[in-house]
């Protein structure tokens, strides 16, 4: 299981007071889903004799999952979440 990642991006580097600040929070987080797989084999010779065998394996798959994101700043602004898609959430506040 890989660790989740988060990247914050602001839509501008410099804002004039009163402007809207838009912040995108892009994240990756994969959950592991395990599935048991039974594999069966049959062998047949020229005389028609058959033999079977099975083996059981586990298949792990990584699926993206939703994360709850919160945004704050050092001036105690309130950030409103304006979009929340899998992998990215968007927030706005006033500069």
């Amino acid at each position, binding site marked *: 299981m890989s660790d989740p990642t988060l990247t914050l*991006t602001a839509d501008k580097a410099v804002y004039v007071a009163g402007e809207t600040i838009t912040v995108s929070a892009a994240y990756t987080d994969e959950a592991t889903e395990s599935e048991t797989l039974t594999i069966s084999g049959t062998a047949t010779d020229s005389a028609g004799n058959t033999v079977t065998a099975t083996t059981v394996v586990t298949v792990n798959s990584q699926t993206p999952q939703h994360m709850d994101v919160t*945004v704050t700043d050092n001036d105690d*602004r309130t950030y409103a979440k304006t979009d929340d898609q899998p992998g990215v959430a968007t927030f706005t506040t006033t500069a």
Partner: protein
Amino acid sequence: MPLKPLTISGVATDAEGRSVSASVSVTVNEPTLFGSSIVTSDGVNHYDAFDAMFGDIKIDRTYNALNASPPKYQSTWAAQDVSHNAASATSFKYNPADVLSGSKDTVLNSFFSTLKPGKTRWWTYWHEPDGEIYGSPQKFTAADYRAAFVHINVLAEAHVPAGVDARAFLCVEEYSMRPANAKGPATPRPLDSFYPGDFIQSVGFDVYSGWNESSPYTLTPSAQFDKLFSLAAALGKPLCIPEFGTQATPPTGVTMTRAQWMTNALRYLRPHADQISWICWWNDGFADLTGDSAASTIWKNMCLNGWNGTP
């Protein structure tokens, strides 16, 4: 327009409780605000009259009396600032020993917890403490002043509501920063002796011509302001001018008018606009601009148009 660094932080948490954080740094370019005092020394509140005189006061400087409980800002003036959509700059006075004993915590906690959102709420503890620290007799020490200011800031950090932009400023006399040979005090009053700490967000200097000197209008803008910019820059802070004023009548032999003094000062300050948070005219007593059409028009243009109104 001071540039204010802003650090935006985010935390993402998944269903399994794993979390990750990140941050991004941006800059907010804040315009210099121009405003005025609104209550004269006789206690009369002139908000509407001064707001009309200056077109639109963007920041309102008020003074709470010694041991005010509650501070009048809390009971009266804050609502005025909200209704006028103005920023606030208010100061209060409690003796450092009382602050440090904790006996003022309740009134201060109430003050901070009732600050209003919207515009910035600048606050300071004991404006012009340089007079008490370095005057004769000394009323309190620089160390006690710093410790009391720090104590109050701890209360502020605990009680200012989320979403309220409250900022601490320091307020000292420009006069105290002058060298003795340039109309300054006989004994040096070093700023760092009473600077309370990095939580201060703007370093304020009350700038006058004609109050602490026998020959007003004789100091050049450079002589008055250069050292202030240097002091604030050394601390990594913008400066503010909580009181800005001069008398109407020049002394014998000086032909400069008050409007000319204002013009010279503002033209000198404009190139430093990104270092100045706000300026309030001291509209009281000898500096009252009532009836001074030339000077009041200059200040009205500054309040209405910011630096674009510079004469």
